[in-house]
C-alpha cells in the first residue's frame, strides 16, 4: 500500500503524459443524391467514308457567334470539297426545341452528315 501511495503521483503524471486515445465517433449518414434510372442508351450513326459530294447540314442553337462559325466552316469545306452541298436554316431556339417539331426529320432527310454549333 505504501508503495502505491508513494508512486501515485508518478502514475498520475504518466496518465497525463499518455492520455487514453480520444473516443472515436462514427456517423452514419444517408446519401442526399437522387438515384438515377438510366435511360436506354443509343449508339452513334455510322460515319461516312469521305465528305466529297455529301450533303452537309450546318445547324446551330441560335446563339450569337454560332452562325459566324458555320459561315467560316462552310467556306473552308467548300474549298476542300467542291462537290459537297450545304444546307442552313436548321436551328433550335436558344433554350427550347425547334419551332418546327419536324425540323430534325426534315434535316435528316436532306442531309448525309451534320455539324451542330453551340453558340454558348
Amino acid at each position, binding site marked *: 500500500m505504501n508503495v502505491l501511495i508513494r508512486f501515485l503521483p508518478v502514475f498520475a503524471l504518466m496518465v497525463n503524459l499518455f492520455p487514453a486515445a480520444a473516443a472515436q465517433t462514427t456517423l452514419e449518414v444517408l446519401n442526399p443524391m*437522387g438515384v438515377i434510372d438510366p435511360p436506354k442508351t443509343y449508339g452513334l450513326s455510322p460515319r461516312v467514308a469521305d465528305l466529297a459530294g455529301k450533303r452537309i447540314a450546318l445547324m446551330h442553337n441560335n446563339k450569337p457567334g454560332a452562325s459566324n462559325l458555320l459561315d467560316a466552316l462552310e467556306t473552308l469545306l467548300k474549298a476542300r470539297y467542291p462537290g459537297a452541298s450545304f444546307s442552313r436554316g436548321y436551328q433550335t431556339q436558344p433554350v427550347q426545341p425547334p419551332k418546327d417539331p419536324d425540323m430534325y426529320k426534315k434535316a435528316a432527310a436532306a442531309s448525309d452528315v451534320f455539324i451542330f454549333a453551340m453558340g454558348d
Partner: protein
Amino acid sequence: MQMEKLGVPGVLLVSSQFLTDARSAAADWAMPGIRTVAIPSDKWYRFRGTMDEVRPLAEAALDPIIKALTAPLTAQEAKPPQQAKVELPPIKITGAGYADAVEKMNELFLKNHMGDGLPLVPPTREAVDAMLKGTSRSRDEVIGKIPMKFGIATVEKIAINAVMAGAKPEYFPVILTAMEAFCAGEFWHMMGSSGSFTLIIMVNGPIAKEIDMNSEIGFLGDCWRANSTIGRSVRLATRNIGHTWPAENDMALVGRPSAHTFFTFAENEAMNPWEPYHVSMGYKKEDSTVTVTKVGSYFGASGQTVGGGAVATWTAQSILDGMAGLAKSKGGGYYTWFHPEAAQALVDAGFTSRSKIQEWLSGKTGVLPRNISVAVTGGVPGYSMIWGYELDSHVTKKIRGATLTRAGR
C-alpha cells in the same frame, strides 16, 4: 442527338468551357458517345463576333471536324454499354469525436459534389426520421425527377436534404410542396443556364404564420430560420438529387442571386387589402400553398423596383406606370409585387381588387390579365417590384399532409 438517332452522323462544336456540360448532357439524354470538337473558350468569346474574326478558330477546328464525321466508330461508340441503376447506400464517417466526424462529413460531401459550401447538418437516420414526422406522406412517394440528371426525388431524399439545410420538421410540408411545384413546371433551364436564373418561393395561407415566416421588412433577406432553411432545403434538394455542380453541368456564370436559399418568403396577407394571392388562384383562404417561379438574374429579366422606399416619393399611379413601362414581353408573365402602402393607395384610387390591377396593366402592355400575378410583399415602408417569368415556370401547389401544424394537413 436527334439527328444521330435518325441515322445521320454528326459532330457537336462547343466552347471548351462547356465541353464537360455537353458530354454530361449527352449522357443524360442517352447518347454518351456523341462526338465533339471543342473551340478554345479563351478565344471563342472574343472572336465569334464576325466571320473574319472567327475564321482562324474554324481553320483550327476543320480537321478534327472532318475526322469526327469520317473516322469509323469504335465498338463502344456504336453500341455503348447500358448504364446500370446505382443505389446510394448510407455513408459511414469516423472522426476523433463528434465535431471532427461532422467536419470530415462536410469535407467528404463537398468533395463528392453534395452540398452548397456552407456547413451541413449530418443527415443521420434518426434526424431524417424526425424530419419525416412532419408529414403523413410515405417516405417512398416519388415527387418527380430533378434535372440535370433526372435523379428521383422521393419524400425521403427531400427529407435528407432538409436535414442538411437545418430545417425543422414542421417546415417539411412546405419544402415538399415547393419540390412538387418545381417538378410540375419547367425548371430544367433554371438549373443549368449560363444566365444564372434563380427561384422565388412564396408561401401563402395560415401555415406561414404558424412556422414564423418573415413577410415584412427584410422578407427576401436572412435571419428567419423558416425562410432561410426552407429555401436552402429546396436549393440542396434540387442540386443534390439532380446531380448538378457549378462549371460542370450548372453553367450559371455569375452564380444565382440568393444562391443558398433562393428568394423564400410569405406573402404579407395581414397587410393586404385584396384577397391573398392563393385565393386569386382558386384556393380557399384557409388553404396553404407554395408558389415557385423561375426568374432572371442580374440582367434584364430580374426583379426591378418601381417605387416605394424611405427616400423618394411615389404615387399609386407612378408605380403602375413604372410596371407598365417594364412589362415589354408579350409571351411571358409578370409577377407584380406591391408593398402594403402601395396596395392601400391603389385601393383608394379605385383598384379595389387584384383583377382591376391585372386589367389595367393588360390594357397598357398587351400581356393577358391571367398572366399578370399580383402579390403584396414586404413591410412599411417597402418597395414595389416587377419580375418577368415564363408561363410554364410559375407554379402554385397546395400544401398537404402536415402533421405538426394546424394548417396544411
